[in-house]
């Protein structure tokens, strides 16, 4: 027996639509649609038009916000309405609000244009207080883009009145307690401090030279994978830290070091990390120095 469907209204601020397109990559959409009804989404012809949604008075279950927000109508408007007429009006009718993607969470890449007038819903970068000062029914799902499962899993948890434990940025711990580093198939190279010699190799860790932010980025990318098949580090590209408040940092393909010492992984003291790294680096592990598939051996 299926329960009553929960209703969703999806709106956009300053965006590239990437979170929407990522959402439409959800593999079990038909099953999802048995439990949820999308009343309005900007990219699809659905039950309600924008006008009908904004002029209506009915309550609905979920308001999903994609994109950064601004009160300045010259920066962002939708169909002639400023964000205040959209976000503030619709949020009063929603049971839960979900910020989908780093732009809605912190302001994201578009905030860099004007940090004084472009915000995330509840955060402005790291700072608490964004477009709104605070609100009690908001869940942040950061990422550029957000992973479709993060949205769907959170919607189900809230629909079923499960307690969603969140971190300091209001992100569900079930997703963001993990690091992008977890599950990376280059982990052994990280352990033994064997760096990737340039790009385009199966071998080596991307943390020392290529700027990988996997060990300091909260997300379960390498656990659940993207498009159910891969991830940046699996195709030899560094994690760019897209779930964090400071995305995009400068110099994304170059490890930022002080005296050639990289930043320590999140929550690990420099002393512990440098001691371990210094020791590991002292050993030359022949197997790890070689190509994974060596024709001579």
């Amino acid at each position, binding site marked *: 027996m299926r329960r009553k469907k929960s209703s969703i209204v999806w709106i*956009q601020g*300053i*965006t*590239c*639509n*990437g*979170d*929407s*397109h*990522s959402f*439409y*990559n*959800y593999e079990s*959409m038909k099953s999802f*649609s048995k439990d949820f009804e*999308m009343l309005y989404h*900007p*990219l*699809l*012809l*659905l*039950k309600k*038009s*924008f006008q009908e949604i904004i002029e209506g008075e009915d309550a609905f279950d979920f308001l999903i916000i994609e994109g950064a927000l601004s009160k300045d109508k010259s*920066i*962002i*408007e*939708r*169909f*002639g309405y400023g964000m205040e007429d959209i976000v503030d009006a619709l949020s009063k009718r929603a049971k839960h609000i979900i910020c989908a993607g780093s732009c809605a969470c912190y302001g994201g*890449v*578009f905030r*860099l*244009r*004007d940090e004084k007038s472009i915000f995330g819903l509840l955060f402005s970068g790291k700072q608490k207080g964004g477009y709104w000062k605070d609100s009690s029914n908001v869940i942040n799902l950061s990422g*550029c*883009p957000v992973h479709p499962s993060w949205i769907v899993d959170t919607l189900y948890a809230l629909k079923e009145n499960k307690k969603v434990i969140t971190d300091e940025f209001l992100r569900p711990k079930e997703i963001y307690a993990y690091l992008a580093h977890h599950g990376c198939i280059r982990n052994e190279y990280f352990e033994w401090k064997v760096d990737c010699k*340039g*790009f*385009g*190799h199966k071998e080596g860790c991307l943390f020392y030279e290529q700027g990988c932010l996997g060990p300091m980025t909260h997300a379960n990318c390498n656990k659940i994978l*993207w*498009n159910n*098949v*891969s991830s*940046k*580090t*699996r*195709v*030899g*590209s*560094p994690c*760019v830290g*897209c779930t964090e408040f400071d995305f*995009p940092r*400068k*110099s*994304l*393909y*170059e490890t930022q070091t002080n005296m050639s010492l990289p930043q320590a992984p999140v929550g690990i003291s420099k002393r512990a990390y440098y001691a371990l790294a210094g020791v590991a680096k002292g050993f030359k592990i022949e197997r790890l120095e070689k190509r994974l598939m060596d024709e001579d051996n």
Partner: protein
Amino acid sequence: MKITKEIVERIEGEAVLELEWEKNKINFAKIKFFNYRGLEQIMVSRPLYDALVITPRVCGICSSAHANASILAIEDCYTSFGENLNISAKAKAIREIVLNIEKIHNHIKWYYFTILPELKKIDNNGKKTAYAFAQKEWFEAQKAIVTILKAGSIFSGQWPHASFLMAGGVTCDPLRSDVTQAQNIVDEVIDFCEEHIFGMSLSEFLGIDSSIQIMGSNSSLSDGMDILMRHGFDSIGRSFDKFIALGESYMYDEASKAVKTTVVKADVKFVSESLEHTFFESKANGYTYSKSAMYKKNYFEVGPMARLIIGKDPLIRDFHRRFKDSVVTRVVSRVAEIAHLLNRTQYLLRHLDISQVSCKKPKIHLKVLSGEGVGAVEGARGSLIHRVRVKEGIIKEYDIITPTVWNLGNGSQENPSIAQEAIIGIDSISKADIVFKSFDVCSVCTTQ
């Protein structure tokens, strides 16, 4: 003279059409895009390679096209500085595979998410019928999209916003098993397309050269065509019959333009961007954030129709002979391109030599790289151009010309743009809306 303002929705955002009417026909249309985002400025003073992460964020639906244009512009900087980066055939093929897959996904998505529901609505006297999240056909199309993007992600790590490109090649180094998986996934999508879109096998579809063969098939393409023909879209939406394709494609030898069906060589250096009617030119008199792209001061249409006309595709030539550059030809071109792209992608996967090097590191250190570079690719919606000026590895200027800027610019009454010309003379808003959407407009790309 009557002036109305119409909002066009579901075009990866929205646009406002300000229509001037005369004798119940559209006399002129101003196309307005708001919500400027300023990504070109955000990149200034960042290291050059940051563009590989930031430019995909221009657009959630064509992020890989932006990444590709960006890497070509970056590599062109090396060329202009004296180092010709020798990209391996393998890396080139992987770049094309990922780009093709993004286009296949785009065209399927556009057909089932955007245009078909609108056509069904028009055919139902303007009344909506539940389609997306409701009908089996829509769920199957969505599944095909998920599936094809999975094949691309084997090489690009993820979609959207993939990072897999680097100066000198690609970052991935696939295994034989990765390629096999991709081949089988693409094959599944071919099955979907044969059953639902083409109504015949892929090889049959690629062999047909007459519009009548499509109309006779049992497929959602012929369903859509049927509606288009019944509502007169075989003669509506014609523009100047001028086409351009500046990015590389296996379908033609070199960057080219066509007037009607006469194809001649074109060069990206003759492309200019007009700020006319934009807020950039005048805060007071401007009315849009969308610039207009021109080739030697002339408007040209970009996209699948342009590519297939330039590539002398027999089927689209037949459509063109009968229906000129109308909505019907534009829509069929976009869908027909799916077949070409699937075929080409399977070919590339079959012939991928994984033993070649993935990425050759440039000899010139990024910290000394100075110069200018241009990259042009054929994205889903047409020619996409990135231009960058770099000094000692730092971006000084970045300019992006998107396909929608080619098709949806704003000219004047005397010299209208491609989409303006296509809309002028139409007698209803709902038809103008379809004409507009037939270009597969991307609002976000327009106001990068």
